[in-house]
């Protein structure tokens, strides 16, 4: 019986699921028993963790981008278009430029984006490294940095929960190398009463930042930015003046969830924490940033979820079996602690992370991974 798998979103999660399934079911695809279709608004994939390095002139944008079609396993059909609405009852997805796409099984890997509107003045007064344009603007600002006060703020939720710490520690070493550390004051703020949402990471980060003479400002929820006077205002009533404001904006899910009336507040899809099935929908699954799960929004999470989901999809498409493989909340994050040292954290739903001593080897491993990430996406590694 002919089955159609439709995956919406050609980011890390969508590409991996499509490629894993296509590699497992190449015979069925070749026979025409199964279609694997990837629907993506962008036809160029961008490796977002690389933005951090772009800001410091350590990677070029061209190193982070590949055409989506070059990343597909044989058998995956790619459609470059924007999904507009999911008709769950009718089993189809309407799109901007073509006929609706019918499906038997739907995977939502629509990711997340910046919610800049939430904080008045942020778009004009702040820099960020969460988009390529933003990273390039920040790079240009850093190229002219001669000293002053850098303030970093963090909105929640946001992608890659350790990236604000990475930026702060990389910037601190970067100013030392440029000979402007003694003219630079660094303020790291966080919306909670500690330096990170994960307690063990917060404890570790506090000592690392203190050792680098970085000031920590807790309970700082950015409410507005005054670009003219260069002041960041917090909900708590605190003000921080700055010469350079680096904001980690809060994120929100794609509009598709809201327009389809399938998402909840923030446009996050209510998702089963183990099967990754969309609540109340038998044939729709969600992975990556788009879920409402209380886990990191990170590429590694999308990767681990993609492996679990692909196994379940293969069973569902070939035998009609219910999800048998469970996602356990697994996540892995490298943490750059400067320009030549790094550590990592690994954790899941039941096991919080510990932070090993940073090493030079982990840093270079991360650098190498940045350059062979493509093999992961293609599901060959």
């Amino acid at each position, binding site marked *: 019986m002919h089955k159609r798998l439709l995956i919406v979103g050609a980011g890390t999660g969508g590409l991996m699921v499509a490629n894993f399934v296509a590699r497992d079911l190449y015979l069925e695809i070749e026979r025409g028993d199964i279609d694997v279709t990837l629907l993506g608004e962008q036809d160029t994939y961008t490796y977002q963790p690389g933005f951090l390095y772009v800001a410091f002139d350590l990677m070029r944008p061209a190193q982070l981008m590949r055409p989506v079609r070059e990343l597909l396993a044989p058998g995956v059909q790619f459609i470059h278009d924007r999904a507009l609405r999911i008709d769950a009852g009718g089993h189809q997805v309407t799109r901007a430029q073509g006929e609706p796409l019918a499906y038997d099984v739907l995977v939502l890997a629509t990711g997340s984006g910046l919610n800049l509107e939430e904080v008045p003045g942020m778009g004009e007064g702040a820099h960020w490294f969460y988009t390529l344009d933003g990273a390039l603007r920040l790079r240009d600002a850093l190229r002219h940095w001669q000293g002053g006060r850098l303030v970093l703020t963090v909105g929640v939720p946001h992608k890659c929960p350790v990236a604000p710490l990475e930026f702060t520690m990389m910037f601190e070493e970067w100013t030392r190398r440029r000979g402007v550390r003694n003219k630079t004051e660094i303020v790291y703020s966080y919306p909670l009463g500690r330096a990170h949402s994960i307690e063990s990471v917060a404890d570790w980060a506090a000592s690392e930042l203190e050792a680098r003479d970085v000031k920590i400002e807790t309970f700082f929820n950015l409410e507005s930015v005054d670009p003219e006077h260069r002041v960041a205002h917090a909900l708590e009533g605190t003000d921080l003046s700055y010469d350079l404001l680096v904001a980690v904006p809060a994120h929100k899910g794609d509009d598709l969830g809201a327009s389809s009336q399938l998402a909840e507040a923030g446009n996050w899809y209510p998702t089963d924490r183990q099967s990754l099935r969309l609540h109340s929908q038998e044939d729709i699954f969600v992975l990556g940033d788009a879920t409402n799960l209380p886990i990191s929004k990170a590429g590694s999470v999308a990767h681990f979820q993609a492996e679990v989901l692909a196994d379940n999809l293969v069973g569902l498409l070939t035998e009609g079996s219910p999800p048998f493989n469970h996602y356990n909340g697994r996540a892995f994050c490298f943490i750059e602690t400067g320009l030549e040292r790094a550590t990592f954290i690994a954790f899941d739903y039941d096991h919080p992370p510990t932070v090993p001593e940073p090493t030079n080897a982990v840093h270079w491993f991360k650098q*190498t991974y940045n350059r062979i990430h493509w*093999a992961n996406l293609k599901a060959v590694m």
Partner: protein
Amino acid sequence: MASVTPRMVNRLGGVAESTIAALDLLTSPEIVELLSTLQRASAVLTPLLGQIAEIGPGAGMEGLAERVMNAVAAGANEVGVPPRPVRVGEMLRLLRQDPAVAIALRFFLGFVRSMWSPVPSE
């Protein structure tokens, strides 16, 4: 001791990606299937290898090319692997057009033969 540098990592990343991609290609279902098919057809193909070396751009080549491809297709049919008429047709076209392709095929078959012993004739 010299440290790792960004350029070393760039180069290493490029080499690693190329190597992984090449391994992925060599282990793809199509290549594995082709090699398996050639192995099964080796009893027929092996005697032809010597003749291929003497082939020129003449009518004799077409006949030999047909025999080679038929042997490949027969090997495929023996175990129920679907023949690939489009690919076979394309290879035949190339063989007819360009004698160099026939020579390349000879080297390829020689490589395959060096990997496996010929299947004994019944």
